[in-house]
Structure formats: structure tokens, C-alpha cells
């Protein structure tokens, strides 16, 4: 005799059994989804925090940037005093990357050094322009035109003086740094600077120091030899270059040697 109730019970158990794998898969997928969502949200929270911190730092930086501007604006009234005070913020911080290039070519170094000077000039001119803008933007209470004219006068009147000031200051800064770390790139830089300002004794000294620290820098030996020639020690310069060429086969040194020997370089 057919027991339909028993059959129905069996049917329900069977259905449960067949649906169980699907339920398990669904539940496990849900769990995985929730876990992934949780992990992602926590990551986002962390990144938001980082962003928030970054923003805070940025705003802080902006604040710090803004404050000197105010000072500049205040100090624009006395232009002659303002320029030297701003110098540490603006220039005379030659990068070491730039200096590392000096090792490879003296000519290139010369060019780059010149470019540094130009940059200095540019930066200075930019610096001088900043107050102009500030002045122009401000309501015209104190007649901005005379101030601008005065600045232009300042630029045109004695540009060489400004350059020299920068070079000396630059040198003193680099000298400080060199005394701290004995970096041959810095001493070479100093030697080149002295050579440029025709202080051949000092350029000779610093080239010598550089050679003692590292005797494989072409530019240093070239400055050394050039300084000797300028000091009237041509023979000594030739001997030094010959020894160096024998040691390093430097093409730049060879060229300089030929120039000295032919009298092209005096």
C-alpha cells in the first residue's frame, strides 16, 4: 500500500538534500563577497586617512608658503633691504646632480655653471617681479609706478655687483658644506668658481685638494693645470698634464696640453 505521507516526507528530505549544495555555495559566495567588501572598505578608509593627512600637510605647507609672501609684501616698501634677505631662500644651492656632471666634462661644467648664474639672475628677477605683482594687485594707495621704476633702476644700475655678492655667498655656502662632508665635487666646484673670478691661487689650492681626495677627475686636473698656467708656472702645468695623461689617457687633458704647448692657452 502506498504511504503518500511517508513519500512526501522523503520528497522534502530529498529536495533539501539537492538544494543544500546550492545553498552552501550561495552562502559561501555571500561570505566571500562580504569579506572582500570589508577588506576593500578598510583599505579605502586607510587611503582616505592618508589623503586626509596629506591634505593636512599640504594645507600646512600652503600656510607656511603664504606667510613669507606676506613678509615680502610688507618688506617691499624698503626694496634695498629686501633683496639680500631673500637670497638664502632663492639661490645658491647647487644641486649635487649638477655637480656630478662636472666630473665628466669641464666644458660642460662651465656651461652649466654659467647656467647656474643665469638661473640665479632669473630667480632674482622673478623675486623682484613678485613684489611688482603684489603691488599691482593692491589698491593704488601708494602709487605703484614709482616703485617699479625704482626696481628697474636697481637691476640696471649694478648687475655685476649682485652677481659677485651671489658668487661669494655661494662659495661661502659651498665651503661650509665642503668642510662638513669633504665631497670632491664641492671642492672642484669651489676651484672652478675661484678660477672664474680669477683667484688662481685659490683655484689651484682647491683643485689640488680635489685631486688628493680623488685623483681621477679630469676637470679637476684641468683646472689645476689652467691655474698653474695662469700663475705663470707653465712648465709645471705641462709636466702635471703629461703625468696625468700617461695615467688616465684623458682626451681633454691632451687637448689642453696641446693648447698650452702651442701657446694658445695663456
Amino acid at each position, binding site marked *: 500500500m*502506498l504511504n*503518500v505521507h511517508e*513519500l*512526501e516526507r*522523503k*520528497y522534502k*528530505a*530529498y*529536495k533539501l*538534500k539537492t538544494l543544500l549544495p546550492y545553498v552552501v555555495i550561495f552562502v559561501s559566495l555571500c561570505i566571500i563577497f562580504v569579506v572582500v567588501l570589508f577588506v576593500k572598505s578598510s583599505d579605502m578608509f586607510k587611503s582616505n586617512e592618508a589623503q586626509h593627512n596629506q591634505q593636512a600637510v599640504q594645507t600646512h605647507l600652503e600656510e607656511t608658503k603664504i606667510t613669507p609672501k606676506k613678509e615680502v609684501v610688507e618688506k617691499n616698501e624698503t626694496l634695498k633691504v629686501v633683496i639680500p634677505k631673500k637670497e638664502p631662500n632663492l639661490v645658491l644651492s647647487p644641486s649635487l646632480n649638477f655637480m656630478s656632471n662636472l666630473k665628466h666634462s669641464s666644458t660642460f661644467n662651465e656651461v652649466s655653471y654659467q647656467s647656474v648664474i643665469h638661473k640665479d639672475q632669473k630667480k632674482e628677477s622673478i623675486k623682484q617681479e613678485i613684489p611688482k605683482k603684489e603691488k599691482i594687485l593692491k589698491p593704488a594707495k601708494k602709487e605703484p609706478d614709482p616703485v617699479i621704476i625704482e626696481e628697474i633702476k636697481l637691476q640696471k644700475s649694478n648687475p655685476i655687483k649682485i652677481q659677485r655678492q651671489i658668487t661669494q655667498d655661494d662659495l661661502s655656502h659651498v665651503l661650509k658644506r665642503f668642510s662638513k662632508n669633504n665631497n670632491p665635487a664641492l671642492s672642484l666646484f669651489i676651484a672652478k668658481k675661484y678660477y672664474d673670478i680669477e683667484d688662481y691661487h685659490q683655484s689651484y689650492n682647491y683643485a689640488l685638494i680635489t685631486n688628493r681626495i680623488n685623483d681621477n677627475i679630469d676637470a679637476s686636473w684641468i683646472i689645476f693645470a689652467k691655474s698653474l698656467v695662469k700663475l705663470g708656472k707653465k712648465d709645471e702645468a705641462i709636466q702635471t698634464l703629461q703625468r696625468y695623461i700617461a695615467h688616465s689617457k684623458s682626451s681633454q687633458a691632451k687637448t689642453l696640453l696641446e693648447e698650452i704647448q702651442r701657446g694658445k692657452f695663456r
Partner: protein
Amino acid sequence: MKNNIFENAKSVFLDSVDAKDYVQLDRVSTIYQSLKDSVKKPLKMILLYGKPGTGKSMFLNKLYHDLSTSQKVIIYQTPILDENEFFKSLAQDLFDVKYQGELNFTQFMSIVKKHTIDNPEVPLVLLDEAQLYPTVQMEKIRLLSDTRSVKFVITLHKTQKEDLIAKEHFKTRIWETIELENALNNELKIYIQKKLMKANCFDTANMFNQRSVNFIYKLTKGNYRDTNKLLYSLFEIYSWYLQNSPSSIKTNEISKKIVEMSAIHTGLINA
């Protein structure tokens, strides 16, 4: 009234090998015709094989039913495993010889020889479930078929057939082998509906759509015996619901739930 419909439908699927319940399907009819043709050929032995529930016994019964009016044919649906009894039954059924006492193979062969001279018509013996016969007895059946005095059609399960026909002497003697297979999906629908319509159960026949037949096919794999069992159980459950809870069933189509319940009941689903 509706109760009767399901009860009638249930009785249609009673597992029987009655020739009148034979359902003609295209593929099956072709096979049956080839079997009938083979019987007319001067073959010693015909092998009908297939998986259980593929309709071998039905085929044999149908053949017996069709040929019994035109020629001497006997059928043994259950094997007579005792050799003496087997030959005594053959002697009586084929030649109307009632033999008293023991009848061995030699004695039986002398009876066959005597009657063959009198009547040149070769009688046909249909042996169902031949795989159950002992090997020695099968060897004697083989010798008997060699005399061409008696023709045999034997049915056996496919798994057994490989053992049997692998033997060299059977390989040479079986001249015709016919394989029966489960119904295909579309054949199963025709089978169910034809079976129901033959019994005038048109309402229940219309309840089977392709979806429900597909599901039944999935459960039974087209096996006729399993299908009969499943549908018998199905209509039994329908009948019960109609009597006890008529609102819980629909009579316009076969419920998947009830098919599953009947599959659980018949063991096609292991719940």
C-alpha cells in the same frame, strides 16, 4: 470519475509481456520486422540481446503471438534448467510425444530424427533469459540447432551475451544478432501516449508534455521497464491525491513533484 481515469492509467503501466500491450514505434517496428525476416531465413540460431528492460521478452512474445498461427512455434519464457525436463517439454510441445521416465539428449535426438522425416517443417523454439541455462545444456541446444531440425531464437542480457557468443562454437552458429536498445526521448513520449490512448486514457495522455517526458527520460534513460514502473507509481500517487486531497494536484499536466515522488518510491531517485 477522475479517480477511474488515474486507476485505468495505472493499470496500463503494469509490467507485463503481453503481446497485445506491444506499442509500435518506428525504430522498434523496423527491428521487429528484421527479426521476422530472419526467422524465415534458414538460420540455425538467432540471438536477441539488450539491456534489461529494453523489451526483449515483449519482442519474443510478440513474435510468438504473430507466428503461432502460421507455423510451429513454442516459447519458454522461464528457463527449464533441468535437462531431462527441458527435453521432455520440447518432445511434448514440438512433436506431441509424452515420454515417460528419463529423456536424455540421445533419446531426444532419435525422436527429432523420426519426426523430421515425417514433417519437413522446421519448428521454432523461443528461449527467453537464455543466459540462465547451464553451459552443458546450451551446448546440447547448439548441437540440436546444428541438425537443422529445430530453429532457436534466444534472448539474453547484453552483459551475458559477450560471455556466450565469445565461445567459438556459438560465434559460428549464430547467424543473426539483433540488439534492442532503450527508447530515445521522442520515442518515449510516443510510447507513453500510445500506451495510454490504447486504453482510452486520453485525458492522462494529454497531461504529458515534452517537459515532463524529458524529466521522465532523465530518470529512466528511456528504459521501458523503468518507465512502466515509474508511471504506474505516478498514477497511483495521483489517484491517492484525487481521493484524499484533490485541490493539491493539477490535472492539466504532470507535476514534477509527483514524478519525483514516484521516482523516490520506485528507487530511481535515491532520497
